[in-house]
């Protein structure tokens, strides 16, 4: 530790720390533009000048490392003049258009000028003129005149993200931030430059000229669009969210968002959103619809008993709503039929669930099925940050397709579809063949993966790494068994898993009382098919889109007399529903979300629910009335735990290791692989329309050529007599013999045919006249 004095206060900090960070620890503000802790020192803006005793000149606090016995002054005549000078320089070519600037009122150039700047300008020469409101991409504008050339945006994209799509052009005072070859910056992390920009140069197009800071309030919330649960600041105005910004949390995250989360907020005002109650296929007044459902509920319970009602939760509900529904179902209705609809079949025991700190501390990371870049984008950034710190980080993937990319090299073991568990177990068995946990896996069959050297490398990483972190997409459920075996084999060495599937708050729904395992849902559906369920309440659940066996769901929808839906959007098969009730979305009510770390995070509403959309408790209170029972939705239930703080209580890792099913090499030419993609997670966004891929399915160039497809085309994917018709694109990263279609896209539900061997044929494109 290094001891130094800043403004008379002594502090000890680790060697190598910059003066600016040491001062921040003392609560002393050193103004900066170019410096950002995640990006490291640059020294360009010269705003952070401080006086260091025994140094002949003022020093920049962001580039000067602390030294033993150093005495620093962040105030005084020399520092004040230095700061005044720099601010005056920054202002000479800065346009005085604060009154029409989106950042006006929340701008560091304004703030620092007010605090440290000269009272009046002396510059009387003509200002340099540059491009105003030029495009960075469809979501980000640049006003080059306002830019202070701090380079945060350029360095973020080039170094941190590794997608160098922004650059500095020109020299000296003519320097501007621009895009490479003036093409739009297509990275899904490009939106972060708006938050990084300390002035009004980089602006979010959807928020352009929408509000002034004194008209709005920014609410601390959480992005609901994927299980990462990025912390956000939401800006509401005139009943709708108009802006989402990243919210850094000290020592936990930098506040990065992906563009899906940053600009996908408009799902709440999507034209597809249902804001009116539907009864028997017609729009209906909220009170009437609610009352009618309550009467049906009363009749069903009265006639067939409480267990004839089943509740299935899903979608974007908060943990609190889940708990209220759980209490209503068990206490008021008295049913034991509860289940959850999730995107995937796999389940992760809490005992194995890791946090993002397990990425920051990992010496080996294994991606099982999941490509974080597409599934949980901000986790990709966290992985990349770790990889940049530690270049010998071992990164493996086990999946039917390549998971690595230029910004994060991954050694992927390409498996047949559904063989991830088997190949992981093979790798484990190669290193510790005689371990009882491995024996319990009962590895049988031929996965066709016989690359001994690669298996051994993966096995070594799995068994011998000090801190192993796995990311799992949950598509192949038997992986759970291998993960438990792995943790057993590794014993005291850290083994942590991060689940990358949705719905984003599935852990919160589980915390609220609903069983998350698929078996519970399957049991309800089978019982329903067999006539044991008279009323099926689908609370945000879209079974035809999510449940792996669409056939079974269809049968249930034909059988159950009362199907009551609730949600933001009409689900598939809604014509079978007696009633459909509009849901309040996460930005419209208070509550908590529990993310893939099993971390509880708080949502704060920014706007009121539109139209007839209601939070869960409004419906429950009305129905309790119909059932003539008392129900108070508000109680002292709190998802936070006294011991574990904002993480869910730690549980033991399960002891039983289920044997794996035997595998065999698939007999067909093509296999259908699937996974969860954040862009294609079924939540609509008009703003993001340009970012959605034109074609859903992906094929290798080899298969494309065999099928006679050019870069894009249509194919028919068939299995068991069912078929999907889907637009396909040629993807260099795909392995021959696999076609990839993301899970849960309403227009192309993979669960209609299921994964595995399929027939793929090219469809002739029909050109409209």
């Amino acid at each position, binding site marked *: 530790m290094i001891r130094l004095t800043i403004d008379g206060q002594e502090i000890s900090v680790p060697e190598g720390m910059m003066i600016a960070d040491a001062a921040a620890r003392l609560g002393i503000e050193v103004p900066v533009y170019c410096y950002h802790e995640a990006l490291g020192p640059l020294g360009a803006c*010269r705003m952070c000048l401080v006086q260091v005793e025994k140094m002949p000149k003022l020093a920049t606090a962001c580039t000067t490392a602390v030294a033993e016995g150093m005495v620093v002054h962040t105030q005084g005549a020399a520092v004040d003049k230095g700061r005044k000078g720099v601010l005056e320089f920054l202002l000479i070519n800065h346009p005085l258009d604060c009154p029409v600037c989106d950042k006006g009122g929340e701008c560091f150039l304004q703030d620092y000028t007010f605090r440290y700047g000269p009272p009046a300008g002396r510059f009387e020469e003509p200002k340099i003129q540059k491009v105003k409101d030029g495009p960075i991409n469809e979501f980000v504008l640049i006003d080059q005149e306002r830019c202070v050339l701090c380079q945060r945006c350029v360095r973020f994209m080039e170094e941190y993200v590794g997608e160098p799509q922004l650059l500095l052009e020109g020299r000296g005072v003519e320097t501007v931030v621009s895009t490479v070859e003036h093409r739009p910056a297509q990275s899904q992390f490009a939106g972060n430059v708006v938050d990084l920009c300390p002035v009004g140069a980089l602006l979010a197009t959807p928020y352009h000229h929408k509000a002034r800071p004194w008209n709005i309030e920014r609410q601390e919330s959480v992005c609901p669009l994927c299980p990462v649960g990025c912390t956000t600041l939401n800006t509401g105005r005139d009943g709708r969210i108009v802006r989402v910004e990243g919210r850094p949390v000290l020592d936990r995250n930098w506040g990065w968002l992906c563009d899906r989360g940053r600009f996908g907020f408009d799902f709440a005002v999507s034209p597809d959103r249902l804001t009116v109650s539907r009864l028997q296929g017609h729009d209906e007044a909220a009170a009437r619809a609610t009352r009618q459902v309550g009467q049906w509920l009363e009749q069903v319970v009265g006639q067939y008993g409480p267990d004839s009602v089943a509740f299935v939760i899903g979608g974007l509900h908060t943990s609190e709503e889940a708990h209220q529904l759980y209490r209503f179902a068990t206490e008021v209705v008295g049913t034991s039929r509860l289940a959850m609809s999730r995107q995937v079949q796999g389940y992760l025991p809490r005992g194995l669930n890791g946090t993002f700190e397990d990425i920051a501390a990992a010496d080996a990371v294994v991606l099982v099925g999941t490509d974080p870049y597409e599934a949980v984008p901000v986790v990709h950034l966290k992985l990349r940050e770790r990889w940049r710190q530690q270049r010998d980080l071992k990164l493996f993937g086990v999946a039917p397709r390549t998971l690595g990319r230029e910004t994060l090299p991954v050694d992927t073991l390409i498996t047949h579809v559904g063989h991830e568990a088997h190949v992981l177990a093979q790798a484990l068995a190669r290193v510790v063949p005689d371990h009882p946990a491995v024996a319990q896996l009962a590895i049988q069959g031929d996965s066709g993966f016989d690359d001994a050297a690669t298996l051994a490398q993966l096995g070594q990483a799995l068994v011998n790494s000090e801190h192993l972190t796995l990311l799992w997409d949950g598509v192949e459920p038997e992986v759970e068994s291998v993960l438990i075996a792995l943790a057993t084999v590794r014993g005291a060495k850290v083994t942590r898993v991060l689940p990358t599937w949705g719905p984003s708050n599935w852990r919160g729904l589980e915390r609220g009382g609903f069983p998350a395992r698929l078996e519970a849902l399957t049991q309800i559906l089978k019982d329903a098919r067999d006539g044991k369920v008279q009323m099926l309440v689908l609370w945000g659940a879209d079974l035809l889109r999510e449940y792996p066996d669409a056939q079974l769901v269809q049968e249930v929808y034909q059988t159950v007399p009362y199907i009551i839906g609730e949600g933001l959007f009409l689900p598939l098969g809604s014509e079978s529903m007696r009633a459909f009730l509009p849901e309040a979305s996460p930005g419209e009510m208070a509550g908590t979300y529990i993310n893939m770390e099993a971390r509880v995070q708080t949502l704060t509403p920014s706007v009121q629910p539109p139209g007839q959309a209601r939070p869960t408790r409004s419906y429950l209170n009305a129905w309790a009335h119909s059932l003539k029972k008392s129900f108070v939705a508000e109680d002292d239930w709190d998802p936070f735990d006294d011991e574990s703080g904002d993480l869910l209580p730690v549980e033991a890792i399960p002891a039983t290791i289920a044997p794996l099913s035997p595998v065999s090499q698939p007999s067909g030419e093509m296999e259908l692989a699937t996974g969860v993609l954040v862009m294609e997670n079924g939540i609509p966004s008009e703003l993001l329309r340009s970012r959605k891929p034109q074609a859903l399915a992906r094929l290798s160039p080899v298969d494309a050529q065999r099928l006679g497809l050019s870069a894009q085309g249509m194919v028919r994917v068939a299995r068991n007599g069912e078929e999907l018709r889907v637009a396909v694109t040629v993807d260099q990263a795909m392995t021959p013999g696999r076609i990839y279609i993301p899970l849960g896209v309403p227009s192309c539900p993979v669960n209609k045919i299921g994964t595995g061997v399929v027939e793929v044929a090219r469809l002739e494109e029909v050109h409209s006249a």
Partner: protein
Amino acid sequence: MTQARYLLRNQEIEDIDQFEVYRAHGGYDALKKALAEFEPEAVVDLVKRSGLRGRGGAGFPTGVKWGFLPKDGRPRYLVVNSDEAEPGTFKDRELIERNPHQLIEGMIISSFAIQARQAYIYCRGEFLRGYEQLSRAVQEAYAAGFLGDNILDSGFALDIFVYRGAGAYICGEESALLESLEGRRGNPRLKPPFPAVAGLYGMPTIVNNVETIANVPPIVTLGAEWYTSMGTEKSPGLKIMSVSGKVNRPGNYEIPLATPLRALIDDYAGGMQPGRSVKCVIPGGSSVPLLMPDQLDTPLDYESVLQAGSMLGSGGCIVLDDTVCIVKASHRLVKFYREESCGKCTPCREGTYWMADVLERVEAGMGDEGDLAILMDVADNINGKCFCPLGDASIGFLVSAIRHFRDEFEAHVREHSCPMGEKVYDTANY
């Protein structure tokens, strides 16, 4: 002045840029001697003992710099800075255009000394002739077995790459040069780490000026004592001074250090042109403060010039005569820095722009009374607050000019015109 040349040998020997001519006059003998008689460490020691200092401007002892390389087995690079773009300095240009083999020879010896296997010449983009000469000379050295594998059966191997910059003054700053050489935007890097520790591609790198390296062969041939017999104790040896301005024989002159400025102007450069007298002198390239006529007896060595209030710098000696408007000269120089500021740091980028605009206005007769105070204050806000030396360089001349010629600046404002205007424009060979 007729005196033996050791660097600008082209001034004595015709066609020494040709390989055969260079060889016939003892060229590459120093290399043979170094490889045959010296251990690498001994060459470093020899250069240390010679007291040779960096000729690019900073004057840092070359041997000491070489000694900074960490001994950790990583590859090392020698990079020769031939991005000579300082107004008033044109010595490296003559060396690479007229005597390129001496640089190549010096590079091979220096690379041997620091055990570099690859060496680069970063050639200023505008020096097309110099680039062609260097490229040819490197080819000839390969053909003669002085480059490539196992040079002269010594087991030492070296490749030299000649890289042409794109024309930016900032790339003469060593870390910006390395950025540019790596294919990036020519912006200076944060120091530390210094290039000797983490330079080209993050590897230990020595960046030396052309003239510095050209001194190495004669030092090897004639010994450290020969070198220290010239100049002063702290500034030994030879320096090339580029003399420009209204002197009779402008050009490059190789002088023993500590030669008086007056001797350089009068004896070497043939004195002032008829009817002209010295108004002031910029002794070390456009980045340094001026010296007044009463300082002409200043010996041209690093310490003496510093003591006189200026710097020897790169040795670009610009003699301003009595017809020169000091405001116009200031504007011309500040405008250069405004054009060449890389834009990375705020004071340099904005300050040079501001000063150039004010000076242009004052020179055009549109100045007002506050302008001089603004110029001095802007200069003060640049001084010592920039990322790299370019910002400080932009104010060196201006601040000294205002200090010494305040009357002339004030006259521009008072008379709303340039008092020197006509004189400047009617000079015969302007």
